[in-house]
């Protein structure tokens, strides 16, 4: 059996929800960042799959996924900088400990 569009979409959706689940449940900021990467990569997978199966003669999806990878790299840099700063001020990278900005 050749893998079709639906298989790939299924994997991508699974990846997305794993990422979302990780984002909601993890307490460690690094893990949360990793979950975000999962979400982004599921989107990349979608772009590639649609580009291959729906408009095989075009390259838009590929370019978009390259963009996403680039932005994800930048985002990781910023996020890690934030995490380091948080660690310096709170001596921890647990999101539960960083909740001063409330009512």
């Amino acid at each position, binding site marked *: 059996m050749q893998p079709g569009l639906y298989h790939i979409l299924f994997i991508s959706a699974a990846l997305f929800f794993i990422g*979302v689940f990780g*984002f*909601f*449940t993890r307490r460690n900021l690094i893990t949360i960042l990793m979950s975000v990467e999962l979400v982004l990569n599921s989107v990349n997978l979608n772009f590639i799959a649609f580009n291959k199966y729906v408009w095989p003669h075009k390259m838009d999806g590929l370019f978009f996924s390259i963009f996403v990878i680039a932005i994800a790299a930048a985002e990781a840099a910023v996020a890690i900088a934030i995490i380091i700063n948080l660690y310096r001020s709170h001596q921890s990278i647990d*999101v*539960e400990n*960083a*909740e*001063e*900005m*409330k*009512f």
Partner: protein
Amino acid sequence: MIEVIRITYYIMNEFLQIRLLQVLPIGWNFGWSLLLIPLLPFAGFLLLGLFGRKYIKNSAGIIATALLLVSTVLSIYIAYVYFFEYGKVMGMYQKFVPIQFTWLEFSQGVSIDFGVLIDPISVMMLAIVTFISLMVHIYSLAYMKGDERFPTYYAFLGLFTFSMLGLVMASNIFQMYIFWELVGVSSFLLIGYYYNKPSAVAACKKAFIVTRFADLGFLLGILILSFHAGTLDFNTLVQRLTVDGSEELHSAYTSTFLGASALTWAAILIFIGGAGKSAMFPLHVWLPDAMEGPTPVSALIHAATMVVAGVYLVARMFPIFSMSEGAMHFVTYVGIFSALFAALIACTQTDIKRVLAYSTMSQIGFMMFALGVSGSNLKNGSLNYSGLGAGYTAAMFHLFTHAIFKALLFLGAGSVIHFIHSNELKDMGGLRKYLPITNITFLIACLAISGVPPFAGFFSKEEILLAAYQHKALIYWIALITSGLTAFYMFRLYFLIFWNKGTIVHGEHHGEGGFAMMLPLVLLAVGAAFAGFIPFGNFVTADGKPMEVVFHWQFSIAPVSIALAGIFTAMWLYRKQNNKPVAIANSLNVFYKAGYNKFYIDELYLFITKKILFNLVGRPAAWFDKNVVDGMVNLTGNTTQLISEKIKEFQSGKVQQYAIYFLAGVIGLAVVFIYIWK
């Protein structure tokens, strides 16, 4: 100097858009010197008000007097130039508007302008206001000497003079209203000058509230008139509302309310404003109390100038008043009733200044009804008010002479009070030995106000009576009785002060108060004696055409004899100390008491305000405000607080919770857009 004026003129013309609308034949510099007349006292006000108490305490009076002297000379010069040289064009005195600029434009044509209107009555008022004010300034140099707030006093006098002159010169009815209020404020300040005296504080509040209440009528009248005429400018207003068959007149005539036309309502409402300032019944209650102010102030404001503002207003609007018979009747009857009413009260009062205050009210009543009767020619739609404007001239003439002799009376009373340190008649008597000049000048003023020939009041009162006689017998007879009463109470005052019992003067007395106090008395006495010979009809008439006032000596028999009867009765009762006045007062028991208590008008006001208005309107309104209005506001506040207390948990600071809300929102929107709003 000329160059400076020329440059100022150029700047005003080019940049400020102030234009000389109608340049007088004399040229533009004449026009600008008009502005100096009110601005010099105003400069004095600013100077003394800002720096007076610190830097120029001792010379404050001299500075203010010098500034006003310039104003007085200018206005008398302008009166001369207007009346004798340039005012008359083709046998008629013209209205000039030499200076005018638009301040606020509401719509095309309806704008508040500031300008100067020059016509016979404004020129006459300019001269008399500055003259009386100058006399009072000079008099106060001695009278107020050594007072703690001497510069403040002169600053207030300057402010008053400025606003009164602005009122007189106003070319726009709204400009007049602005200055009208300014006059009210300065009157308030001057009545309350002795601010640590509770009675003075109460009096100034009362004066302000009563006149302000009346001014509401004035404002409503202005609004009605401007609504129908589409302008606020005096000349345009008169032009539009007096031309037979004009669109504006038609609209003002045909829109009616409670059976009277809009024109009548507007005139009556404007008159109510005038009645408040001029202390006409029933808005007179503030005037006797206003005597709490310094006596020279009473002479200036509450006798000679401000209280005649109402008369001036009616005279200014006279062509419009004369278009409405109802309004004219209203003016007439309020005037004549106030005249008689005040004269009756004046006979019973024992405070020297209060007698004079009621006498002022009575004389203003005379002027008012004189204006009222002069519009009687409006029959059968005939709009020509020229023929019978005798009352108009008479009212203005009486305003002129009254200003002089009433200022004299008040300044004389001031001299007496200065000497005896009391306002009460019972503390006085036999003062002719100590105050010879005051005695003679006061006598002249009494003769003038009583209408004894050849003093000033005789001529003006004669014209008023003649106008009343031509109008209606009833008015004439009431006026005649009132003038008899006037003679009686004035001479009662005179004899009680200067004759009657001898006063024991303790130790060294300080005499009459020096040159500064005597000079105004003498000057005003000369005026009171001779001002009557001015042929007023030649200068001030309703339509600007000179009017020959025919003098009928037969007609004057009745008024003069009734005045003499009043004088001799007063002499018989009060010349020597005796018990006849008490006996008469006792025999008139109830009536005398009613008069002494001013016919309980004050009590009536208190009853209406405190008992009826406060209880029936004030308290329910306060309850409504506290419970319903405040309740609504509090309800809104409390509800908001309650809800926010409940929902503040949403902002928990937990990033992951926010993410859940975000996801829920995205899913919700996705559901909405995919399944509901396809």
